[in-house]
């Protein structure tokens, strides 16, 4: 089995891309007009003491590459520096806020997978008016940005009907889930549409396969034909959207958390961007990219298991 070699190679590739991403995230700071020190302090009182502290923390007197490597070394040890706005370690800040975001993303992911697959399945199998309705609904869904969904859902279900809280994360886990229901739906809507469409077209393609007609001719019950020969065969295609789904969830959570005032890393990113708290922006950007790439790696490793025709090492991205 050359699975291990394949996994090792993909892991190395991922590390290389992450290295590139970290370089971009670090180097972006130097695109700013003016000196890095004034950028990092932007707007705040530039007392000599503060300048001194910034210089020390960022080693601004060192050459660029040395600074980058030093920063990278710290990041690898989980040290993202200190937040300029909050005056605490960025890693502490992240640890506080990550649970809310991860819960929200997990809830949305669950909704996306369950409803997206179900709608795609029903549309492909039923056809006719049901399919047209699903197609039209999903067309609307993929045209609805998550913040629009968030504002509309909030207006209807939280403000007007009062069924759900309008904002915040509440106390305790059950209350958290309660508070995150509307945000999760808002976050999921676009992706439900996308996944339903991908599933539908993959299943329609599988339905056209002769092996489906052959299975029917062998007396396999229709429900089993759909499950074992149509849905199963569309799973490979569906799986390849996994990376896209997770990256979209992570990015759109910035918008949804802002709309619902949820104290997660998305809202933190928005706040630190508008206050130019660059170490925090760097950390969250890198975190999102790393999460996205991890999911992509997992998808790549799972793909040969889902579809035995996929040979290990064949590159999806260049297909």
């Amino acid at each position, binding site marked *: 089995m050359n699975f291990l070699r394949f996994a090792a190679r993909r892991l190395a590739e991922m590390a290389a891309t992450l290295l590139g991403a970290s370089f971009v995230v670090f180097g972006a700071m130097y695109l700013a007009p003016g000196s890095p020190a004034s950028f990092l302090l932007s707007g705040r009182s530039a007392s000599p003491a503060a300048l001194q502290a910034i210089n020390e923390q960022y080693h601004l007197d060192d050459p660029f590459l040395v600074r980058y490597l030093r920063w990278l070394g710290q990041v690898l040890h989980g040290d993202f520096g200190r937040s300029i706005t909050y005056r605490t370690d960025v890693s502490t800040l992240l640890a506080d806020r990550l649970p809310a975001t991860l819960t929200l993303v997990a809830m949305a992911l669950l909704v996306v997978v369950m409803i997206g697959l179900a709608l795609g399945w029903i549309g492909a199998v039923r056809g006719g008016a049901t399919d047209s309705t699903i197609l039209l609904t999903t067309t609307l869904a993929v045209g609805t940005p998550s913040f*629009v969904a968030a504002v509309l859902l909030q207006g209807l279900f939280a403000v007007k009907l009062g069924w759900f809280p309008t904002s915040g994360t509440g106390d305790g886990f059950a209350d958290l889930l309660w508070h995150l229901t509307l945000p999760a739906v808002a976050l999921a809507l676009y992706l439900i549409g996308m996944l339903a469409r991908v599933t539908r077209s993959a299943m*329609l393609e599988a339905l056209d396969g002769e092996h489906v007609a052959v299975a029917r001719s062998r007396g396999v019950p229709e429900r089993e034909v759909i499950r074992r020969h149509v849905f199963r065969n569309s799973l490979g295609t569906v799986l390849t959207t996994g990376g896209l789904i997770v990256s979209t969830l992570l990015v759109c959570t910035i*918008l949804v958390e802002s709309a619902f005032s949820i104290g997660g890393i998305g809202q933190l990113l928005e706040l630190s961007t508008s206050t130019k708290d*660059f170490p925090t922006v760097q950390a969250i950007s890198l975190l999102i990219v790393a999460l996205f790439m991890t999911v992509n790696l997992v998808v790549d490793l799972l793909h040969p298991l889902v579809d035995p025709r996929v040979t290990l090492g064949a590159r999806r991205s260049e297909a």
Partner: protein
Amino acid sequence: MSAVLTRRPGLGRLRSARAPLHLACLGFVALVVLAALLAPWAAPDDPNAVDLGNALAGPSPDHLLGVDAAGRDTLSRLLLGARTSLLGPLGVVAFSTVAGVLVGLVAGWRGGWLDSVLSRSTELVFAFPGMLLAILIVSVYGEGLLAPVLALAIAYLPYVSRLTRSLVLAERERPYVSAYRVQGHSAAQICLRHVLPNIAPVVLAQSTINFGYALMDLAGLSFLGLGVPALTPDWGRMVFDGQTAIQHGYPLSAVLPCVLIVLTVVAFNVVGERWADRVARRTP
């Protein structure tokens, strides 16, 4: 029971049922573009004229679609907002299409180290979702339309260049290219006169679809307060401003820009996808 190798029943009907949808979307795109072009003359009011005494008023003869929480005329803001909301994505699409085609053309035609450098950097950009790259750049440059447009253009570039590259690779193998080469035409001539026109429809269809995505991303940035400056009328910004109005039970000034965003994105998606379908059916 169904028979062997037949297409899904209802698919034919669906195709024809989608034609009116396509026409409606085409019409809507035309309408929005027209509104954006004529906005300065069509807008009944100054979009930034604040009338706090009249805040959150409903539709009236003076303000056909009501006013927002700051007492600004919603219709005027929607009309002028169409300009910013369309101009941004247009910039993204124009830049990413021109640069992407150029990069894809060179990589596909020349191949070699250039191609591998390109595919490496493409992978790197793919790792950054467009919105995240835009936020990163905005956090450095501060708000404004130019920085996010450039960031999104860079984020969208790989989609165009990868498509162009694969199209060029296929096109290069076709006999007419070697025929022209034998006749002594230069590579640049062949690319410009023959390859480019042949691949243009597919690329433009992709760019039309990208327009919808860019609109969503830019509106999202404006919603976060990271896109256009605060006073510029913009649909995404209007949704953000309208949140307060919603909390007070006057949803109109937030709902209308929401509806316009959704309809515009859907219209561009439908038109682009239909175009892509048609182009795909024509080329073998």
